[in-house]
């Protein structure tokens, strides 16, 4: 659809507003991998309720909005080998790098963090190479 970019922009503004609230009110960086990862490896034990409350909001709002849209197709692959490999890479990669699209991308680059720009350049380049390799050359996705 040609209006996709408008919805992208509106959605982006909402995402950034969420990050602004989390920083200014709670004093925290809105990084999805850090919020989840701290619960998984126990490093965020002291702030677990704040993390769980954040994630509850992330899960709940799409449930509220879903009926307005009807069927939403996420076009996810049915190849579970690909999904497991991708999930492991995303889980280990974001925790090793200490951030993902929200932490390094949205929060890091907006404060002109060198690490944010470096990480974002690297994961976008690797993602682009990945899609070309696995879609156009190997045909697995």
């Amino acid at each position, binding site marked *: 659809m040609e209006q996709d970019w408008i919805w992208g922009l509106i959605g982006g503004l909402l995402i950034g507003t969420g*990050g602004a609230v989390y920083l200014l009110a709670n004093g925290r960086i809105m990084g999805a991998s850090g919020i989840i990862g701290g619960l998984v490896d126990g490093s965020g034990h002291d702030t677990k309720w704040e993390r769980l409350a954040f994630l509850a909001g*992330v899960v709940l709002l799409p449930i509220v909005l879903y009926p307005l849209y009807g069927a939403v197709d996420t076009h*996810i692959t049915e190849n579970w080998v690909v999904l497991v490999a991708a999930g492991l890479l995303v889980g280990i990669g974001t925790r090793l790098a200490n951030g993902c699209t929200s932490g390094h991308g949205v929060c890091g680059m907006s404060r002109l963090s060198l690490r944010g720009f470096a990480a974002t350049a690297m994961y976008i380049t690797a993602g682009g190479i990945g899609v070309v390799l696995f879609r156009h050359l190997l045909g697995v996705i």
Partner: protein
Amino acid sequence: MRNLFAFLAGGLFGAGLFISGMTDTSKVQGWLDVFGNWDPTLAFVMGGAMIPMALAWLLRNRRSTPVLGGSFPPAPPQRIDRKLAIGSVMFGFGWGLAGLCPGPSVASLSYGGAGHWVFFAAMIAGMALTPTVRRALDRQVATA
């Protein structure tokens, strides 16, 4: 109160991810796929998100503490180290393979179907394994 604002922030994040179409893996892969039918949406989402976030960083500089108390996160180290590079490249490959990153993988759990749960479970397993991977990388550096 902290939990309420965390929930509110998460809600805005989840709503934004849903509305922007970022839980649609074909839009993410379409943006990464410069040799295919390129989809520019992700650039608008990232650009849109950075506007309020940049304003928030400016406001942060005018305050000594967050509104709800506590302290602001310390300035991050500016070192581009091996872990940042290895991690970001691994993340990028996984992101391209499935078209999902951590935020959208949570936002889509309620409606995305079984595949989203498989990805989510593998991501959690990866996060649980990371301390081991990190130690192995550190050992390698120590012996090198």
